[in-house]
């Protein structure tokens, strides 16, 4: 549909897009640039200068002094079980509300969806007090309660993500033809077999998209670990990287290096699973 006259108009469009791109990239490039420069150089010439050398020393220092490996591992401890549990529970719930009609199936789906949209701060005080007053043996928790444990963080992350995932998956499952499970029913397959052997394999594209999205969300989540985890060495990376600011004080070079390192796993997931990630973000926003 491109007509030659449109090219003239498009040059204005490109000027606009280039200007916006510059605005969008400047903070990121500035961070990367700062992270590559030794502190002695920026102290001497200022951050607004072109003097070399450029090297990766800040990354090494941030990695070891900032205790980043520990934070990364902690993020795995939280994200992996949370994503697996969320998807397992959400797909079962979605199956039950979308493939069967019963009295409260739509009501429950509405409540699930609503819960996920609440600002987390609304629930902060009661959840914090509930966990504080739930005793756990000291073998399981050094605090003697659910506070300062991964169980607390994982449980709340799962509960919060469950609504969204159930909603998306139930919409997806609704589009699968009813004949599929009816044929299985005739063959004598029970509810579990229908779910496990027929519906779940067909839901794989939606599950892949949701899993990618959830991994990035959980990795990026700041609030729940901040609220529940008080031991600094248990924090996941997104909450932990914030404490680097206090640790490295005015050393912007190290802060920039730490921030850059934190983005790398997200970047890898995004580049490897880009299709799934964007599909997850827009799941249901367009037809199909």
């Amino acid at each position, binding site marked *: 549909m491109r007509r030659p006259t449109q090219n003239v108009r498009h040059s204005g469009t490109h000027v606009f897009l280039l200007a916006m791109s510059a605005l969008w990239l400047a903070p990121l490039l500035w961070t990367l640039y700062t992270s590559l420069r030794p502190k002695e150089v920026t102290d001497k010439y200022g951050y607004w200068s072109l003097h070399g050398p450029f090297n990766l020393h800040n990354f090494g220092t941030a990695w070891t002094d900032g205790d980043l490996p520990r934070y990364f591992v902690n993020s795995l401890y939280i994200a992996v079980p949370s994503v697996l549990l969320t998807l397992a529970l959400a797909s079962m719930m979605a199956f039950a509300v979308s493939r069967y009609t019963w009295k409260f199936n739509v009501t429950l789906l509405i409540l699930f969806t609503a819960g996920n949209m609440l600002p987390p701060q609304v629930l902060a005080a009661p959840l914090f007090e509930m966990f504080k007053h739930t005793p756990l043996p000291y073998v399981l928790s050094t605090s003697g309660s659910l506070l300062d444990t991964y169980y607390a963080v994982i449980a709340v992350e799962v509960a919060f993500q469950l609504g969204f995932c159930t909603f998306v998956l139930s919409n997806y499952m*609704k589009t699968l033809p009813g004949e599929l499970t009816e044929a299985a029913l005739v063959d004598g397959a029970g509810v579990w077999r229908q779910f496990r052997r027929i519906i779940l394999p067909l839901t794989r594209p939606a599950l892949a998209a949701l899993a990618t999205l959830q991994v990035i969300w959980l990795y990026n989540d700041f609030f729940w670990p901040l609220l529940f985890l008080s031991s600094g060495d248990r924090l996941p990376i997104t909450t932990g990287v914030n404490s680097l600011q206090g640790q490295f004080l005015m050393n912007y070079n190290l802060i920039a290096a730490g921030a850059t390192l934190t983005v790398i796993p997200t970047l890898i997931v995004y580049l490897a699973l880009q299709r799934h990630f964007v599909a997850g973000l827009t799941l249901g926003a367009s037809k199909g």
Partner: protein
Amino acid sequence: MTQTTAPVPVATEVERAPRARAGRVRRLTGSDRLVLGLMVGVPTLIQAVLIWIPTLLSIGLSVTRWNGLALSGIKPVGLDNYRYALRDYPPFWPAIAHNVIWLGFLALVATPLGVLLAVVLDQQIRFTRLYQSVFFTPVMLSLVLVGIVWQLVYARNEGLLNNLLGTAGTNGAVDWLGDPHVNLWAALIATGWRHAGYIMVLYLAGLKGLDPSLREAASIDGATGRQTLFRVVFPAMRQINILVVVITFIEALRAFDIVWVINHGTNGLELLSVLVIQNLVGEGQVIGVGSALAVLLLIVSLIPIVIYLVRTFRKAD
């Protein structure tokens, strides 16, 4: 996109595709009913215990005074906490004002910018994929990282902005995050940087899903590009438009991470969500007051939530 990018559910158009003829539970055998009961029961129990009951407890705690120690120490005080918050709590009204400004900025600047980018990038222009990746990059970052990256931009003598303005190192250098007259706007630009990209992705997906024959029909009828956009495309995108409005509203109420990273939400960056947490964990631990603030936040949040649910589920039944 939760922070916390808010993971907000996405609306679906009513499916006209062959719909599942839903099974009837009554026809099921006993063991099938048990399986189905567990499939519903376990997730529902988790939601009830960790979302719905805490929401109700928040309302309960808001009419009590409690130091968070023994449960027997909970004392009912009626509406005292609300009275205190509205009349005597100094940061309350500033926080409300900041939340309103936050919403205004997202609704009038960041969201329209995201929609504009989507409309522009939906055209057949060169490098559209590359542009999309650029605007999308901040969406991948946590709000914590957005806060850190922009601190490097806003730093008084070391930051990019004052160096570009040529004021770095002089007395005229603005302390973008420390000066309570400007720091809210500085934080909003950082938020908008990410929010616009998020809206762009959502809107672009909607535009791509639009029936191409709509536009063809409009152009055959002699409509200009602008007319097609405003009279045909935007009305046809109603579902996405509502979604974008709801997301914008909710993001404005959920705003927390960025201001917490900058200065724990003080000195010009007070927000309702932050006051809730300051009352819960700070010295003093005024759980009742924090809960009263949480309930006010809940009531306001219910507006976009209910709008969204009504729009989404009314047609689906």
